[in-house]
């Protein structure tokens, strides 16, 4: 167990080292914060100041699926693609560790980056509390939902990057899958689909989609079912990544 932890620690540490060595991490971090800022405070977008009440759901969390859809693949594309293209996987897999540890450690490092991004937006909580009396429980649940969604995207990204040694392909593939996972539960799309697709099938699609689960968190509803959904996606992704790497 201690070796397990030791290995996990130094693998994750190295991964984070690489994130902070490359400018991409910083660029995306800053970009994300700038864009979310524009969306939240922008006049015709989130319109935070003119909303008239202190809440983050509409001006802030609405944008998260769309932003993470782009941001997460950018963070996750290098997870395995880079190891494959540079051949460092050959080093990694001839070390006395098992693949599971490597998959988990690298995933953890990516998730930490996502956590960091969300953490940097927390001054918003302070701002809304200063401006009015928001429902802090709801904000917290929305943050949790947002993180879980990003984590689920990351696990999909991990699978895609294990599939190809080309980071761009990995990015695009992840982006497309994430987009489909959002759209298949996005109310305006469901509205259109309702005319063509039988209702049972539509319900199924909606349940598979990430959007309604995320929406529940946004509304302040933390249900075991939704948590379970996200965890299932994450675990599926990690197991699949491991399986793909073993077959390389």
């Amino acid at each position, binding site marked *: 167990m201690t070796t397990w932890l*030791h290995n996990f620690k130094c693998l994750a540490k190295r991964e984070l080292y690489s994130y902070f060595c490359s400018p991409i991490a910083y660029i995306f971090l800053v970009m994300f914060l700038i864009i979310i800022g524009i969306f939240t405070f922008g006049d015709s977008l989130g319109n935070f100041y003119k909303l008239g009440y202190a809440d983050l759901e509409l001006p802030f969390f609405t944008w998260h699926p769309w932003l993470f859809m782009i941001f997460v693949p950018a963070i996750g594309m290098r997870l395995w693609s880079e190891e494959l293209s540079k051949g460092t996987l050959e080093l990694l897999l001839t070390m006395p560790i098992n693949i599971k540890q490597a998959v988990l450690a690298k995933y953890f490092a990516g998730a930490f980056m996502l956590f960091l991004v969300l953490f940097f937006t927390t001054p918003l909580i302070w701002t809304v509390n200063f401006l009015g009396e928001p429902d802090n429980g709801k904000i917290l649940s929305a943050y949790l939902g947002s993180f879980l969604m990003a984590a689920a995207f990351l696990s999909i990204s991990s699978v895609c990057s294990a599939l190809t040694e080309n980071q761009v392909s990995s990015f695009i593939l992840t982006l497309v899958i994430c987009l489909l996972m959002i759209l298949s539960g996005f109310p305006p799309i469901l509205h259109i689909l309702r005319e063509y697709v039988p209702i049972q099938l539509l319900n199924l699609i909606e349940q598979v989609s990430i959007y309604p689960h995320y929406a529940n968190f946004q509304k302040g509803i933390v249900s075991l079912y939704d948590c379970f959904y996200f965890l299932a996606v994450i675990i599926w992704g990690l197991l699949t990544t491991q399986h793909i790497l073993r077959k390389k």
Partner: protein
Amino acid sequence: MLKARHLVKEFGTIKAVMGVSLDLEKGDVLGLLGPNGAGKSTTMKMITGYLEADSGEVEINGINIEEDPIGAKRNLGYLPETAPLYDEMRVIDFLNFIAEVRGLKGHQKRKHVNRAIEMCFLNQVTRQSIYTLSKGYRHRTCFAQAILHDPAMLILDEPTDGLDPNQKHEMRNMIKEMGREKAIIVSTHILEEVDAVCSRVALMNYGQVIFNGTPEDLRAVSPDHKALFVQLTAQNPHEILLSLKENFPKAKFLVDELESNYIRVKVHHHKKELNFNDRFFSLCKDKQWRIDNLETKEGRLDEVFRTLTMPNSRTDWPTASLIWNKRNDPTVTGDLGKL
């Protein structure tokens, strides 16, 4: 130390390795030779456990690599062919990382990292990012990674690739030195390296081991092994071969080169003729042949390599030099030019 049994690996329709078995004991340095695509790297990857063999078994230090991969990998150091590295890391950070993953901590970690840096002459570049290193230094950094934990077994895929002559020399000495208490497999295309460092040789071709023995045994395969080359100048060199054959019926003579005023003959089995040397010299004196050159050959490894790995060249080997001579003949080049 190493037991590899009937390793097989196919990539789709490509049969990369077809039933390779290798045995290695402590103190052995095995040179793995073979033309490009022979399956050397693939064999090594299977031994390190990076590639799963389609069938066959690998045992390192008595540990089966499939049953206990982690235990087996502890005993292994591996230098991949491409010398892959985490480019964005600094050399020292990279080596520290490897030491940690290898389970070294604190004092032990520092000791091993410093030793590896010293052995691979990396002192100057420890603070440099790996992507700024020259090719040779990259290779050395990756080699440092392989020997860092002082493993019982080393697998080195073309370790001298990209090194300058001094470093090649150092590397060979190092391999030789380490070979005393380790089992080492080195793949290489540089045949002098076999003489310099290897105690054993395995030659691969089309996924199979076609020769396994000592470098001396390999040399003995050469058609030139222990052959005597004589170059004689005479009025009429065409007659020389005939009279040699008459005088020494038990020896075998082959024309190596024939020009208007001299002949170069290769003599096999001259030991079967009693007093060959004395009789030969007096014959030359009688016939007024001038001996220009006389040498015994051990057989060159590159020739053996070619003979064994290019089946066609085995039959035409004695005539190869004739073909070559024809190419240099101005009367023939015109024809070749047309072709």
